[in-house]
């Protein structure tokens, strides 16, 4: 499975929350879901890990 985008990760987190809010959630799968949520959170955090602003000059191919 390829790494989800930030938006996909957030959407999956939301889906996990919705599943956990249903009353019929299976305790056997609880740990599995929480682990997946933790993975997604780490992924989101890493995408926002502090870094310097990069500037790429787009020159030479400017449309007239």
């Amino acid at each position, binding site marked *: 499975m390829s790494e989800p985008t930030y938006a996909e990760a*957030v959407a999956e*987190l939301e889906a996990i929350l919705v599943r956990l809010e249903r009353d019929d959630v299976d305790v056997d799968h609880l740990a599995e879901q929480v682990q997946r*949520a933790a993975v997604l959170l780490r992924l989101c955090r890493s995408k926002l890990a502090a870094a*310097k602003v990069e500037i790429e000059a787009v020159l030479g191919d400017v449309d007239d």
Partner: protein
Amino acid sequence: MSQPALDLDLDDLGDPTYSVAELADAVNQVLRRGFRDGVWVRGEIEGYQLRGGHVWFSLGEDGDRGRATLPVVLFGGTAARLRPLLVRHRLRLRDGLLVRIHGRLDLYAPTGRLSLVMDGLDPTFTLGQMAADRDQLLRTLVAEGLLDRNRRLRVPLLPLRVGLVASAGSAAWHDLVDELGRSGLPFHLLAVDVRVQGATAAAEVAGALRTLGRRGCDVIAVVRGGGARSDLAAFDTEVVARAIAASPVPVLTGLGHEIDRSVADEVAHTALKTPTACATHLVELVRAAQQEPERLWTAVSARAAQRLDAAERRLRSVSQGVERAGRSAEAGATRRLDVATARLRERAPAAVGRAERVLDVLAVRTGALDPARAMARGWSITRRLDGTLVRSPADAAPGDVLVTSVAGGTVRSRALDDEETP
């Protein structure tokens, strides 16, 4: 061809003949008399330049007979006098600006050029013209459904890849880049250096928007520093407005003006006042997106903990139920046993008494049958010698020896015949 020698003296009779300088003076006198209080002229500024402390440009107008132009000079002193008026109306003279200016006509002898020496300006004309042009453009954009096309686009959840349209190295550029840098977030800027004022500005800005639209940006920020209302001209042009409307990604503007809204602002997804405000907006969007997974994670872990608690509570309640049921079954059994024991204790003596009584009766009844007791009362048992019982007279033949048991022992006797007497 021979040339008659003419007296150039103006006082001569006949056709007057002027020297060039004299003619220039004469023309200037006529012009002053003809336009006693000077003259108002309207047209579009072109060829604007500042030279030797004075401003030079032409007023132009397209007419039926081609383009008409009039050179204008604005001397340094007059320019200084007019500056407060321009500043108050946030105007700056520049090419392309439609103006109504006042001045006196002057034929400048050294060049033979007629020009207008500017001494006044009507700012309301220019502002009105700009407003009218702007309104017309806005109406066109509305009619074509372009005014809110960019606004309908969704800004991606994490707008980190930012297209930047600005003049490289300008204050506006630094304001935006520095503000993004301070956030510590990993913004990636795709920057296109453009001129934001001057004749080529509109085309450069529009071109940059198209280029960045193809480079996969999340958003594009168009920024410039503060300045005169008329400096925003590029951002009131149709070409820039259309480029923003056609942009496949949301466009933010930070054009550095507090009061005026340009057409670009009207068409943009989000119009911010300054480049810094533009950067702050982007940082806020990312921060909000950053908080979302944290919020969801908190909710997920809280929910999971609640689920575990609920499961544990259920388990505890079931086990308590089982224990309770077990205890109550045991107590029931014990209680039943106790009752039985108590009843036994209570009833056993009566039963024993009853048995004893039965035994007594039996003993009495048994005792009554004892032959010894019958013999004591006088009854006896007679047997023959062979031990057989004599139950009837037929059982003893005359002469038989009979043994009779009585209470005190036995009596031996002999049976007699019926007629025989002992």
